């Protein structure tokens, strides 16, 4: 089913009566305060802050609907894994000469984070700047729990749902609770919205079926070849039950976690062939001459009317899904498939996701791993990346998730067997225990009573063990990944890859 909404056409009239009456003074105060707080926070940390938006929204409650109402096209990206990458891909596809879509940063994906990004692009009267002609577009990554608060404030939106895995159970309770909250959120989606979702994810398929929104799906053509045996999936697959009858779903093949060709044994729901398919080709190339990327996969994308090949500098099956999601969104907005694929050629992804940095003549690869699936995917890439040393860094700040028991569910054997492993972060002692029980008795020597190891100490120890010219792979939770980035960029000749 081809569903298209042309960009810029259906701008919802400003719904918030309050903001129509909002005194210019209030808007001025809101935007002004946001600017000030932006500067203040910038002295401490500037990546992923939502403080300016929070401040603005306090002063001007109608900020989000008023500012978002001025956007041409709005795209919202939700999901457990792949939000940031997919949003970054969509943003690239929607760029036009002289203008980029307004986007938020991955650390700022709650309501205030979106307001932050909009306020940054607005003048002191509360009007969005319009470079070139026409209204700016918006591409926003949205946290799972924030969707129901954000959607009603936006106009007709292309909602891209990547997947729904188990993550941060201490925040969410269960993955099923997210499904329930999204059902509520989608029921309140503005008229004219479209849902783009993964056909291989039964949770999303059941959600879409109940939402009544026009939808467009993306998925694989068949069982992925990199699993052994093909289609067998992996050990981190959560059980998923049919929402109608409660029976566990059966699979003909699996790709990642609970994604795959699913069906309810009684027949209530089954995977439908995706509207847009993606077929990953082999890993292409050894990276560019300057060693700034790791090469990437060729992706063949196809829908009912067209086909294209994308060659981003991305790796892994998860990214194949992310690219398909982004292209499906772009084509739903009327962009051509080939143009969209070209827009991401050579793109190596957002920071912290297989990001490559050079320190002291060693290659550091940073990978975000925050739940069993993302850690599992890192493990899968291990043979491709062939690190000499692995650094595991797990923090338990609110942004990481306070409960780290998920590290026991990720099959890390492939990553740590026969290899030097260094641990760091506030939960380093838990990692050490995990390694001990995985490596049958051999354990790294204990070092601290507090149980935590500073990122600086961990990074230093890991770099020391990595030979010159060798590779250090760092898998880290969110705040640990951000911390490592900062440390790495400060050290001597660290050269971040261009984004």
């Amino acid at each position, binding site marked *: 089913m081809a569903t298209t909404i042309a960009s810029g056409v259906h701008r919802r009239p400003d719904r918030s009566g309050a903001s129509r009456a909002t005194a210019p003074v209030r808007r001025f105060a809101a935007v002004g305060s946001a600017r000030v707080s932006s500067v203040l926070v910038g002295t401490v940390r500037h990546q992923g802050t939502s403080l300016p938006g929070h401040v603005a929204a306090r002063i001007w409650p109608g900020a989000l609907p008023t500012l978002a109402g001025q956007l041409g096209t709005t795209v919202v990206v939700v999901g457990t894994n792949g939000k940031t990458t997919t949003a970054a891909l969509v943003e690239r596809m929607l760029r036009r000469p002289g203008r980029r879509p307004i986007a938020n940063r991955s650390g700022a994906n709650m309501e205030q984070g979106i307001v932050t990004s909009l306020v940054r692009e607005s003048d002191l009267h509360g009007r969005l700047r319009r470079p070139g002609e026409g209204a700016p577009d918006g591409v926003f990554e949205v946290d799972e729990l924030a969707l129901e608060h954000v959607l009603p404030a936006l106009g007709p939106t292309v909602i891209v749902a990547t997947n729904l895995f188990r993550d941060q159970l201490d925040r969410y*309770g269960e993955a*099923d609770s997210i499904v329930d909250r999204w059902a509520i959120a989608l029921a309140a989606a503005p008229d004219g919205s479209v849902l783009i979702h993964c056909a291989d994810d039964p949770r999303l398929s059941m959600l879409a079926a109940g939402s009544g929104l026009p939808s467009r799906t993306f998925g694989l053509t068949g069982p992925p070849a990199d699993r052994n045996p093909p289609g067998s999936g992996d050990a981190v697959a959560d059980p998923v039950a049919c929402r109608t009858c409660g029976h566990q779903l059966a699979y003909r093949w699996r790709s990642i976690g609970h994604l795959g060709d699913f069906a309810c044994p009684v027949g209530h729901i089954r995977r439908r062939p995706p509207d847009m398919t993606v077929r990953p080709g082999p890993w292409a190339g050894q990276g560019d001459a300057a060693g700034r990327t790791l090469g990437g996969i060729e992706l063949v994308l196809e829908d009912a009317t067209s086909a294209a090949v994308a060659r981003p500098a991305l790796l892994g099956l998860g990214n194949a899904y992310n690219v398909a999601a982004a292209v499906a969104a772009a084509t739903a907005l009327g962009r051509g498939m080939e143009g969209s694929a070209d827009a991401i050629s050579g793109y190596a992804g957002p920071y912290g996701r297989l990001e490559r940095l050079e320190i002291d003549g060693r290659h550091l690869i940073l990978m975000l791993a925050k739940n069993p699936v993302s850690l599992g995917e890192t493990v899968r890439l291990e043979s491709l990346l062939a690190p000499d040393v692995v650094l595991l860094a797990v923090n338990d700040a609110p942004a990481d998730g306070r409960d780290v028991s998920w590290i026991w569910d990720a099959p890390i054997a492939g990553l740590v067997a026969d290899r030097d492993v260094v641990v760091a972060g506030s939960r380093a002692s838990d990692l050490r225990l995990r390694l001990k029980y995985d490596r049958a008795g051999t354990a790294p020597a204990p070092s601290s009573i507090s149980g935590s190891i500073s990122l600086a100490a961990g990074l230093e120890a890991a770099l020391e063990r990595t030979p010159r010219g060798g590779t250090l792979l760092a898998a880290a939770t969110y705040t640990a990944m951000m911390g490592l980035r900062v440390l790495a960029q400060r050290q001597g000749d660290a050269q971040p890859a261009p984004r």
Partner: protein
Amino acid sequence: MRIVHLFPDVLRFYGDGGNVATLAQRARLRSIDVEVAEVTVGAGRLPLADLFFIGGGQDREQVTVAGELERLGGQLMDRVADGAALLAVCGGYQNLGTAYRTALGSDLPCPGLLPVSTDAAGRRRRLVGPVVARIGGPALELVSGAMGAPDGRPDPGREAWPVRTLVGFENHGGRTTLALDAAPLADVAIGYGNNGIDGTEGVLIRPGEGGLRGLRIGTYLHGPLLPRNPHLADALIAAALTAGGTPPRLAPLDDTLEWEAHRAARERIRAASGSRHRTPDWVRGLVDPVRNLIGY
């Protein structure tokens, strides 16, 4: 020694598989041959085993498991009656009780293997957070029996070990109540425990009590439970080895890492909650969003 993991295909949230890995590894390090088997949904028969483990999962999966236990519950009771040890965490703990009312208000059939009943009905908030608990008397006896100190004091070489405490993380909507004559596994110092009211956490039934020879432990503690509470792991292994008879003294292992992790967790939890009380939710409600806003 054979360990059977019950329904890992549907009850494997929260890293509970780490409990099985810990038990197996600690036994192997004592030169005990260990076999780990899984019983998945749809199985017709429970194999014989020395130790059964059942973990946690979502509410939806617990309905599935209740159905399985209608069929297999009697067999499990037989195994435990013959001396098999049992560890049930969270969802499994709830399912094996005498009664369980789901969040939607329906009563699931329960095999009554543990003298507890659970009520998850009503939209009450989930009990989530880190836990420090003090092991009760019966549990301590078992623990010290396994660790080889007959009078309950740790060996001189392990004086500093906090064997009286358990650390973990809880995340449950159900409130569990113990039967009048049932002993808890531990008393909560920090956290909610079984129901957030009576200060108990888990349940422990000693071998021979209630007519069943096997040791039975139920708890809400994730983490997973056993890696940071090696004394409890050893108590289970010892009970499993003797089918409920006099537990052997297990050879000591180098548990420096385990106790470091245990102590670190205990200190962090205590520091985060301040003196004896949990951080009031309103404080956490202020602090966490600010941390999120700044991006920390």
